[in-house]
C-alpha cells in the first residue's frame, strides 16, 4: 500500500504515542514511534520520514538536540515540536532551530490532525521545490547543450552555404542584392555568436574559465565593445560617448568574455535608446574596483520588472523599435561578471533610461606579481 506520508513521533510518554497513532490511524499515513531521542534518530535513518513530531522535554537526549540532529541529517524533513510546558519561548527557540511549527500539550485530536495535515503539505512543497530547483539546473545545463548542437548545427549549415553562395554569385548580383546577402550573413553570425556565448557560459565549469584568466585591460575591453556595437548604433543614429579615466589597473579576467558581457549591455543600451540619442560608457577606478557604467536615455525599465532582469530566461519589454531579446543576455552578463568576482547592478526609470554599473576588482601591484609567479609555477612540472 502506498502511504501519503511517513510520520515519526518521538515522545517519552507512551500515552501520547498511542493516542497520536490512534488519532492519525486510517488517514493513509505510515506511523512510526520512538520512546526517546536515541531510538528516534535510529528510526529516522531507517525509515526516512516526511514529518517528525518531537517532544521537547524527554529524558536522555533533549528534544532540542534531536531537532539539531535531524537538521544535520536531512534539513528537508519537516519537524513539529510538542511542548509539554507550553511556553512560547521554548517553542520559538525550537522554531529557530528549524522546527516548522509547535504543538502545545494537551492537544485535541482535531488540533493534531490539522497540524499533521499542514506538516505533510509543507513536506510536499519542500520536495517539490527541491525537484523544481534540480530540474531548473538540469534544464539550464542540458538545454544549453541541446541548443548548441540542435540549433547551431543547422545555423552553421545555412551560414556555410551562404558563404559559398556569396562567393559564387556575388559578381552577378547588384549592389543592393549583395548588401542584403551580407546583412543576412551578419545576422546569422550574431545568432551563432550568441549561441556560442550562451553555451560556453552556461555549461562550462567556472574553474576552467578562471584558469584562463590573465591581467586584462579594461580600456581594450571597452574598445572591443565600442567596435562591436557601433554599427548597430550608427543605423539608429545613436552616438556612443566613451570616457575612460586612465590610469586604471588591470583586472584578472578574460578579455573576450568580459567584452561579450559588456557588448551585450551596450547593445541593450542601443536597442532601448530612441533614434538620435546618445549612449555613454564610462570607466574609472574607485580605490580597489574598476567601475564601468553604461548609460542610456532610452525607454527605461519598469519598477516591477527591475528585480528580475538578471534572472535566467527573463525577457523584458521590447526595444524602442520593437526589438525583443532572448531573455538570456543579462543572465549571461551576470554570470560572466560574477565569474570575474564582480557585481552588476542597474538603476532605471521608465522614460528616462537605464544605467548599468559593473564593478570588477582591480589588480593591485602585489597581486599581479603573485598571479605571474602562480602562472610560472604551473609551467614548471
Amino acid at each position, binding site marked *: 500500500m502506498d502511504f501519503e506520508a511517513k510520520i515519526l513521533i518521538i515522545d517519552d510518554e507512551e500515552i501520547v504515542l498511542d493516542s497520536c497513532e490512534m488519532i492519525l490511524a486510517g488517514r493513509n499515513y505510515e506511523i512510526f514511534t520512538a520512546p526517546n531521542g536515541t531510538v528516534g534518530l535510529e528510526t529516522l535513518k531507517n525509515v526516512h520520514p516526511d514529518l517528525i513530531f518531537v517532544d521537547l522535554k524527554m529524558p536522555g537526549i533533549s528534544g532540542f538536540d534531536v531537532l539539531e540532529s535531524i537538521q544535520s541529517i536531512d534539513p528537508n524533513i519537516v519537524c513539529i515540536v510538542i511542548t509539554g510546558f507550553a511556553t512560547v519561548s521554548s517553542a520559538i527557540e525550537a522554531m529557530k532551530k528549524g522546527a516548522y511549527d509547535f504543538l502545545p500539550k494537551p492537544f485535541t485530536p482535531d488540533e493534531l490532525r490539522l497540524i499533521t495535515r499542514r506538516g505533510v503539505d509543507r513536506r510536499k512543497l519542500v520536495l517539490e521545490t527541491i525537484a523544481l530547483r534540480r530540474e531548473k539546473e538540469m534544464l539550464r545545463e542540458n538545454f544549453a547543450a541541446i541548443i*548548441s548542437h540542435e540549433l547551431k548545427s543547422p545555423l552553421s*549549415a545555412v*551560414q*556555410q552555404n551562404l558563404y*559559398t553562395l556569396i562567393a559564387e554569385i556575388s559578381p552577378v548580383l547588384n549592389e543592393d542584392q549583395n548588401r542584403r546577402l551580407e546583412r543576412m550573413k551578419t545576422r546569422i553570425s550574431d545568432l551563432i555568436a550568441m549561441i556560442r556565448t550562451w553555451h560556453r557560459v552556461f555549461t562550462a565549469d567556472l574553474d576552467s574559465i578562471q584558469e584562463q584568466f590573465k591581467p586584462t585591460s579594461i580600456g581594450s575591453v571597452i574598445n572591443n565593445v565600442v567596435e562591436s556595437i557601433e554599427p548597430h548604433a550608427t543605423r539608429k543614429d545613436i552616438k556612443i560617448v566613451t570616457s575612460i579615466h586612465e590610469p586604471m589597473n588591470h583586472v584578472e579576467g578574460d578579455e573576450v568574455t568580459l567584452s561579450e558581457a559588456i557588448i551585450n549591455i551596450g547593445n541593450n543600451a542601443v536597442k532601448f535608446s530612441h533614434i538620435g540619442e546618445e549612449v555613454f560608457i564610462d570607466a574609472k577606478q574607485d580605490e580597489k574596483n574598476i567601475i564601468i557604467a553604461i548609460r542610456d536615455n532610452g525607454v527605461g525599465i519598469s519598477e516591477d520588472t527591475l528585480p528580475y532582469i538578471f534572472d535566467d530566461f527573463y525577457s523584458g519589454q521590447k526595444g524602442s523599435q520593437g526589438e525583443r531579446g532572448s531573455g538570456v543576455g543579462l543572465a549571461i552578463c551576470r554570470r560572466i561578471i560574477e565569474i570575474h568576482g564582480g557585481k552588476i547592478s542597474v538603476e532605471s526609470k521608465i522614460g528616462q533610461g537605464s544605467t548599468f554599473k559593473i564593478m570588477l576588482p582591480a589588480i593591485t601591484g602585489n597581486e599581479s606579481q603573485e598571479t605571474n609567479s602562480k602562472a610560472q609555477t604551473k609551467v614548471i612540472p
Partner: protein
Amino acid sequence: MSENKRLLIIDDDPDFVEGIQSILEGADYIVDVKYNPRDGYEALEKNPPDLLLLDIMMGRGAEGIMLARKIRKDPVLREIPVLIITGIREQMAFLFPGEPVHPGFVAVDELVEKPVEPDFLLERVSALIEASEERKAQEG
C-alpha cells in the same frame, strides 16, 4: 592552384557538406564525401586522401574523435593530415574562440569551427597539404 589533390570529408550533415564541398571543388580539389564514421574509415583505408576533413559530433556523440584516434594509431593513415571541422569548440575542451585547441586532447593538425569562411578554409587546406608533403619529402 592545386594539382588536383584528393580530399575526403567525413561529416553527417549533408547541407553543411554541400557548402564546403562547393568551395573546395571550386578550387579544383577532388572531393569525396562519407556521411558516417564507418563508411569514412572504409574510404580512408581503400584510398587514402591527401587530406581528411573530419566532423566531431557524429552518430551517438563524439564519434569523430574516436575516428581521429583510430587514424593516429594506424601506421599508414597517420600520415594523412586531418582538419577537424567542429560545430562547437567547447566539445573538444574548454576554449575561448581564437585560441588553439587543447594540445593533449587529440592529435589533429588543425581545428576550425563551423561555419568556416571560404578563404580561410582554402588557406588551411592548402597549408596542411603543403606541410604534409614537405614532411614526406624530408622523410623520403
